[in-house]
């Protein structure tokens, strides 16, 4: 599972980097930003989505091409739990379990309903509005995943050390937006990118971890 997840992320990053390389870097000056994120307990926080949105809007030429990704249902969990895609991307929801799932989202970013199904649904879901889509399974309360739909080419997720590194960002004014499923309050910060590398240490407060109780399938425990 973890292997799949890493592989997927890597392939996505590789594509993004390739796009940035082709479209932006030859024509502009570029800066560098390193962001380190820690939580309430000063521990590095991974899977934090950090986006940089250019003030005044991103021109169409800079935007990433929509992608096609999968969020699988394996052992009654969504894999991966957090997915970042550019606006207009297609997300498929293959069901790898031998039981049915009913995937839905009532989020403003994307409302959809995939009533009980097995295998791979015929059509992927297109996420055409920027924002956070919270996904659930109607018959498994604990199953939860998030799709972060971004409207910028500059987005990354922190690694195990809680670090992201943006390179070759065109100089200019940006809004740094930070998102984590458990963040207590939205975080946004204005930022000027110059040729000089910037290092930011961010500390965010998290809500206590909450998960609907999952009934164990192979134990005598109640859940």
């Amino acid at each position, binding site marked *: 599972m973890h292997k799949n997840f890493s592989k997927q992320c890597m392939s996505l990053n590789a594509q993004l980097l390739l796009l940035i390389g082709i479209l932006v870097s030859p024509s502009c000056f570029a800066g560098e930003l390193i962001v380190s994120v820690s939580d309430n307990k000063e521990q590095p926080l991974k899977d934090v989505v950090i986006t940089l949105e250019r003030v005044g809007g991103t021109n169409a030429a800079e935007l990433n091409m929509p992608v096609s990704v999968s969020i699988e249902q394996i052992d009654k969990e969504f894999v991966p739990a957090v997915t970042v895609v550019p606006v207009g991307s297609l997300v498929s929801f293959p069901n790898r379990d031998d039981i049915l799932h009913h995937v*839905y989202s*009532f*989020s403003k970013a994307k*409302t959809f309903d995939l009533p009980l199904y097995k295998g791979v649904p015929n059509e992927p879901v297109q996420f055409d509005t920027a924002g956070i889509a*919270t996904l659930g399974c109607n018959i498994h309360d*604990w199953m*939860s995943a998030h799709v972060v739909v971004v409207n910028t080419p500059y987005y990354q997720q922190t690694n195990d050390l809680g670090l992201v590194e943006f390179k070759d960002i065109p100089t200019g004014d940006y809004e740094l937006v930070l998102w984590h499923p458990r963040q207590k309050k939205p975080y946004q910060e204005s930022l000027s990118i110059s040729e000089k590398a910037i290092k930011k240490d961010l500390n965010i407060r998290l809500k*206590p971890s*909450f998960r*609907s109780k999952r009934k164990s399938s192979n134990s005598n425990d109640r859940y």
Partner: protein
Amino acid sequence: MMFLKLYKQQLRWRIAILFSALILALSGITLLLSNQANLANARTNITANLSITADVFQQLIKSRVQSLKDIARPATSDHAFRQVYSQGDIPTLVSAMRNLTARIKNVDNTVMMLVDFDNRLIASTTELNTGAERSWQDLLDQAELNAQLEADGVVLIDNQPYELVVTPLLIPDPEAWVLMGFPLDQGFTASASRITQSNISIFSQPVDRQAISLHASTFATNGSVQLEDSLKSFAEHIGGIFEVAFNEDTYLTSILSLNNEAISESNQAGVFAAIQGSLTEELAPYQRLNLILAGVFLVGGIITLLATGLISNSITKPLVGLSQGVFEIGAGDYKVRVKEDRQDEIGDLAKSINEMAGNLEEKDQIRRLLGRSVSTEVAEELLNNDIQVSGEEREVTVLFADLRNFTALSEALSATELLAFLNDYFDCLSSVIDEFNGVVDKYIGDEVMAIFGAPVRRENHAELAVLAAIKMQQAIAEFKAKNHTKWPFDFETGIGINTDLVVVGNMGSKFRNNYTVIGDGVNVASRLESKTKNLPFWIIASQNTVNAAPGFEWQSLGSTEIRGKHDPVEIFGLTAD
């Protein structure tokens, strides 16, 4: 008054009243003790019941809270509900919420509210005043700290206590707070009371901890002010049992704090339940028992009165008979006999009374018989001193008095006249003999024989005999003077006196006997009396008598032959006293 009279005069009434009073007093003490024991028992029972009721009451709230949670969790995860919420259609949302609350069968008047994470009201199934959300802020804070984002507790919403359950709305992440609850109102206290069989009231105290306000109670509403007053000092008794007087009854009261936190540490209004047990109700069966007991005791008292009356009657009735018998015996009727139909002590008493009456009758007969020959005094003395009348040798003085000229008299008088004269004459002599404590032994024709010193012992029997002889002579002189017209003739009386050892006692056959003396001494006295015919002395005595009664003047008349005596005997004539 009549009662007192009966009490004083009749033993049976006294016994009956005494026993009844004793039974009633014992019954009274028993009732009193039983009353005290019942009161203590009632308090113990109520205390135990209150403790159980408090547990049941809390369990009842818990079970209702559980029902709310059980419906709230799936409800908030309901797909359609999530969809309605996400679409932001408030009228539909409220309608869906009402639909959900209707599914809860065992909780009445369920309310449901939806607020966002900033506690702004999104939708509610009930009308709320502005700012009502503040009342449950503490609960939301508690829920936020809970792993399942859940909390429950009692809050005052628009001055009405509610038990509220907080759960998150999951889509599938927590998106809002769902609050479900039920009011702790009349309906709730009524159903709690039906289950616990106790009086339950819900009241609150504002943050200032001054007055209290009653929200619901199983007591009639017109007692609410009184009830509020009676519960004023509740704060000192939380966790304990205290007594309040209210509604003309005493209630043992237990206070439950329904707030989650200790009320002293909270800045919220305190909500409490007062669970009360009525002492009167608890005592009601005992009162009935006491009433029955009192009735039993009263009947027991009456039965005792009658029974002891009957028993004492069975004692006193024969006593009345005995008393009547004794009274009659006392009045001199010695022939009276009381009934001896009992084997008990009364029977013994009757027997004794009859024996006594028999003895009295016998003595009376003796007295009457004796009375003819001895004086009443001698007869009394004889009866009183238990004289031996069997034979005995004793020194006595025997006196013989003989009427001179009897032959001439008997020729001059008719037999009837003679008998009348003799009776008068013997009356005269007998009264003198009586006077000197002598006993007339017998009358022999015109002769009378008297004994002195028997049957009653007299030391001076000789002197008494001599004095009697002298008095006889005087009495005869007076008799002659007095009866000169009736008996117009002259007569004399010769008297012989002898003192000697003789045998005294009852003599005769077993059918007929009399007390008399026998012996030579008797004969000597008779002979001495005969001597008066030939000697100029009317009173002649033997040497023995003269020796025994020396205080008189005697003249020796020399020795003389006495018939029946071998040797001559010296005799004396009385010259003067």
